[in-house]
């Protein structure tokens, strides 16, 4: 069951590629940003997956309980930071799209490109 056992990693890879494809193939700037968000979320999933230890619980030390298996909390902390970074990137990206819409009147990449061509 090698392939199924890596279920989460397959989802990670597929999500990553879906996001990447949207960034490259879509000319609508909002869709590009959505793709970028999916792309980043895929990586969050990878981090969350790798901290899981089979049979492990939350790493809280309790009185009288010994030999407890803990999941690794560090990747979750890391990814919390990365989620914040991802949210602020998306927010900034959307803010830029708003300003592009205000100045160019469009959020389609080719229309923006054509608007700046010398007439």
């Amino acid at each position, binding site marked *: 069951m090698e392939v199924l056992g890596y279920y989460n990693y397959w989802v990670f890879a597929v999500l*990553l590629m879906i996001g*990447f494809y949207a*960034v490259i193939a879509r000319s609508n*700037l909002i869709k*590009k940003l959505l793709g*970028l968000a999916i*792309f*980043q979320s895929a*990586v969050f999933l*990878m*981090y969350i997956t*790798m901290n899981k230890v089979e049979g492990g619980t939350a790493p809280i030390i309790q009185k009288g309980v010994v030999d407890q298996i803990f999941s690794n909390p560090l*990747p979750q902390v*890391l990814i919390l*930071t*990365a989620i914040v*970074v991802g949210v*602020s*990137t998306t927010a*900034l*990206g959307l803010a*830029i*799209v708003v*300003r*592009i819409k205000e*100045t*160019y009147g469009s959020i389609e*990449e080719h229309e*923006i*490109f054509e608007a*700046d061509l010398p007439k």
Partner: protein
Amino acid sequence: MNFSEHLPALQVVVPLLSAPLIVLLRSNGLAWAAATATSLMAFAIAVAITLGVLDGQTFPYSMGGWPAPYGIALGVDSFSAILLLIVSGASSFALLGGRPSLNSQIEAHRQPLFYAAWMLALAGLSGIVVTADAFNIFVFMEISSLASYVLIAGGPDRRALPSVFKYLVMGTIGATFYLIGIGLVYMMTGTLNLADMEVRIQGVADQSPILVAAGFITIGLALKAAVFPLHAWLPNAYTYAPHMVTVFLAACATKVSLYVLLRFDFFVFQQNLAGHAFQFATFLMPLAVLAVVVASAYALFERNLKRLLAFSSVAQIGYILLGASLVSTAGLTASGLHVFNHALAKGTLFLAVACLAMRFSSLHLQDLSGAAKSMPLTMAAFCIAGLSLIGVPGTAGFISKWYLIGAALNEGALGIGLAVIIVLSSLMAVVYIWRVVEAAYFHTPNTSAVNIKEAPRELLIITLLAALANIYFGVNSAVPVALASDAANLLMGHLQ
């Protein structure tokens, strides 16, 4: 407790804390003064650190007193000292002289926010350099990137917006690739501390995830560093950014990513992966050569002065990478030197561009006809920096080109080919700088350009000072050479 111990932490904390304070300042003049003072303080810290490094100190620092590898460790060596000098130096020069240019380009009510973003960019870039923790690098990289997107989009030119969107998308993809790489390494080694990583990778049985991680990290950082052919975001972002932002970012932003790339490849991966040195060199050397040749060719035909210099920046990144891809002490010395000298030359060139932009409405070469008649001092500074970019003896650029050709010639037949390419591309630099000089000195001024005066005094003084620095470090290159060769020995020292 010795004060100098805290210098690496202060390098980041000072600009980071000043950012929210600057937001609170309502007056634009005060905001500018606070940002400039902070930047100068950061420069003073960088100088103090450099002096310490030259004395052999390494400034190890454990954040919050938690010992590495559990806590976040900071540390500075001669390689980071070069980067700290150019980051804080470029920021200080741009802020000190840049007030007139910024006032003309940034809307008055947004200026305090703009300076706050500038401080965040400074803190992020310094943070990447001082930290010894892989994830910390990611966080600082995103702080500096998000801040620089804001800075680039701050100008009056609407074309900055699509350019910055492109930069944001490509920059985020680069950072996410880096994050994937770090995740894979963490999965296999269980550590984020670079020094600890280097040791623990040796004990990893299955090397393939590490190899994949090396690929992700190299590509991700190459995107951030605008290594050819991943440079697509750079020319437009630099062209349409406010002029002072271009001075700051062109001097240091891409080089900081390149610094992380070299740190990873030489400290962590090189000696641990079978044949990595060979893969690194064969992968990056063709890209470096292409960058040097193709980007210089683009610059030859570019009509907009700022875009011309931006393409030249892509070519110069190629030189830095070329030195590193030789994987030799001489090559890395040349790279380290070129990081420093190119920052000097390109910073000065963009300062001169900012001076021209104060008086000319367009930066197309035909609109700059006869600029030297009305702005002789600005154009003199431009010429000195241009000569430095080309690598004429007596200027800083000559020193690094000299070392680079020397390093290439050590490599036998391949090296002769590389040396020919370096000389050829320097000749291309002669041509594209000459096109500017020809327009400014030998064409008759446009009728609209008759009443043009020199640039505002403070901007002009800073530009001339920067130009003099190009000459000073061309004649008296002891300090950068000492730092660069020490850095090269450090990097090579990790390969057994």
